């Protein structure tokens, strides 16, 4: 690398890395990612204290069974309900007799009062025909705790079903064994070995995709604003006297790209640290997504290539205009491929080896996202990866050639914003 190029790269890099925005983004990034991983894990584990509930049984036949079932109901290995026992039936015979409306009404009022006073979280109201109709109601101050209510629904339902089976002369335990449902586990096979995949890998790959998308655009736009700034501060003519416009452009792309990589490096190191720290206390309860070296390498590679592709275009646009506002209308067409890629990614995810996914993973502006996604969800044939990268590199060379020409003319142009035909003229004559 020539000394001049190195000087420009160094300046661009230091100018990015020393901004408050970079420091904040670099520190906050891992914190946010860590929070995204830790909070759901803890929330699932420590879902608050068990609910204090009671049972209002109007049939008079279900009270003890439902109460017992609720006491035994587990979530994540722990009891979820603390059951306040209702009035015990006077005798075994009386148990089958429906509770009189007066007695039920009195107990209902008492339960409502305790709920409102906070002594109770809620109560289940089982109507007289609960067994046959399968209807019941839950009254409580908080009815949005879906997981708890789902557990309660299943528990009470099991009691009712057992009662029906028993009434039909069947053995509930036997029926349960006979009708045991299939539990389909998904295991991802890869070079790294077998591993149970509980959807975490998918979510993780989508997060990576989003980061890739946002980073390419963010760092690309950084180049745009920095080119405009050089024009506004008129420093570009001073620079042009010492270094060629190509060196200036190359130095800018390399310097800003290196700043982006630095941020990723800090992020992945802290992510690694977080996952090590979490491996102890949260082992087992939280599935750490599998990150293969191929994924990491392709993330960095496709970030760099995608960044170069878009940043070169952004640099050309920045050199052609005078203000960031003027850049907007020219910048939009440039973003079309990457936006299209974001639109297409669900289809590519559905059929990563389908014709659509394979095709768009070859198109230079879209391949950084789509080929990366394909590599994450399944490993495409090496020739496809190679071809995609080759086409992307060719695309970058073409874009750089065009951008360098526009840049050379544009950096010294002030005044009216050029139209697309005028830009083409610059490319031809530069």
């Amino acid at each position: 690398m020539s000394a001049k190029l190195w000087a420009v790269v160094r300046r661009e890099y230091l100018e990015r890395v020393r901004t408050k925005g970079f420091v904040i983004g670099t520190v906050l990034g891992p914190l946010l990612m860590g929070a995204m991983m830790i909070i759901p894990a803890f929330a699932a584990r420590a879902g608050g204290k068990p609910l204090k509930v009671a049972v209002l049984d109007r049939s008079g036949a279900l009270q003890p069974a439902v109460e017992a079932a609720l006491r035994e109901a587990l979530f994540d290995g722990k009891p979820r309900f603390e059951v306040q026992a209702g009035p015990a039936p006077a005798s075994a015979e009386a148990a089958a007799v429906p509770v009189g409306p007066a007695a039920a009404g009195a107990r209902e009022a008492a339960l409502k009062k305790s709920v409102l006073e906070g002594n109770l979280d809620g109560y289940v109201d089982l109507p007289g025909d609960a067994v046959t109709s399968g209807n019941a109601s839950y009254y409580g101050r908080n009815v949005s705790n879906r997981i708890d209510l789902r557990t309660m629904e299943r528990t009470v339902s099991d009691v009712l079903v057992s009662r029906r089976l028993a009434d039909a002369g069947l053995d509930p335990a036997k029926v349960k064994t006979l009708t045991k449902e299939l539990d389909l586990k998904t295991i991802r096979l890869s070079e790294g070995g077998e591993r149970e995949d509980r959807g975490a890998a998918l979510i993780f790959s989508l997060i990576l995709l989003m980061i890739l998308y946002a980073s390419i655009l963010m760092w690309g736009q950084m180049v745009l604003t920095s080119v405009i700034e050089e024009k506004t501060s008129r420093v570009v003519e001073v620079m042009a006297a010492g270094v060629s416009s190509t060196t200036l452009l190359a130095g800018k792309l390399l310097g800003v790209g290196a700043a982006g990589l630095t941020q990723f490096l800090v992020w992945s190191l802290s992510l690694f640290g977080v996952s090590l720290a979490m491996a102890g206390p949260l082992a087992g309860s939280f599935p750490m997504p599998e990150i293969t070296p191929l994924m990491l390498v392709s993330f960095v590679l496709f970030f760099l290539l995608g960044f170069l592709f878009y940043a070169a275009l952004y640099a050309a646009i920045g050199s052609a205009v005078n203000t960031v506002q003027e850049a907007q209308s020219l910048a939009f067409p440039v973003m079309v491929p990457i936006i299209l890629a974001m639109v297409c990614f669900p289809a590519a995810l559905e059929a990563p080896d389908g014709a659509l996914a394979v095709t768009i993973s070859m198109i230079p502006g879209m391949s950084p996202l789509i080929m990366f996604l394909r590599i994450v969800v399944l490993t495409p044939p090496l020739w496809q990866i190679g071809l995609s990268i080759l086409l992307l590199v060719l695309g970058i060379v073409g874009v750089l050639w065009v951008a360098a020409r526009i840049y050379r003319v544009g950096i010294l142009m002030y005044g009216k914003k050029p139209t697309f035909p005028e830009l083409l003229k610059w490319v031809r004559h530069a």
Partner: protein
Amino acid sequence: MNDKAIVLRGIGKAFAGHVAVKNLSLEVPRNSVFGLLGPNGAGKTTTLRMVMNILGPDTGEIEILGRPADQATRDRIGYMPEERGLYPRMVLEEQLVFMAATKGMSRKEAEMRLGPWLERLGLADWRKKKTNELSKGMQQKAQFVATVLHEPDVLIMDEPMSGLDPVGMDVMREAMLDLVRGGTTIVLSSHQMEAVERLCDRVALINRGEKVLDGAVSDVKARHGKNTVALAFDGDGSFIESLPGVAKVSDHGQYVEVRLEDGADPQPLLREAAARLRVRRFEIVEPSLHDIFVETVTGHGKEAA
């Protein structure tokens, strides 16, 4: 190695539909102060940009320090464009060292040379400040340091005095003269000829992209003869214009510069003025570059040129 700092041979540049510089040839001797003078839009900036390869000439050749112009020879030039520019958020000393590095000087050497320059221009206390925290005047000085820090053999300054206050102009003039004494060649452009004419050894006047005349300042003036009278007075001087032998009057109210016709004797003018006005000053002077330029361009005194 020859004794020319910069040689232009028939360079030309046209932009969409208009010719900015046409077949321009110049020779700038080493260790001189060369003024490229002309009105706005004459092609001065375009010419200087072509020397710096910021614009590529359509025609012609450029030699710098006796060699065909390339990046290595251009690195021996310090260039200060008309529109000054520094990175606003860079710390002053880093900025200056960086600028020198883009001209091929090592950071170490630039850091070493920086101190004396900052001391000299009164910027020493500001070296750790960001550029956008400096006053306009300080930024001008910083720009000058950025131009000279890499010890160029040639300085090219486009309108070096524009935007400077009188104190700043003096500082700049002194610094430039110091460099010339040290062997540096300076090429400067200006549209305000009075501001630079005493600074220059040689000038080239250009108009509409073409050279009108050039040469040593003393020669240029000698060619136009000592036929200008500076006259300061109290009273109504409007009659002077109609006196015989008077070619042209630059009227400044109570002060006029009277250009006499070739060979005319100034004595009748003195007599007439003494009779009708209260004369405070009467002096036979060389014409100013401004007047020479105006005359040459408008066709008067073409024979003399």
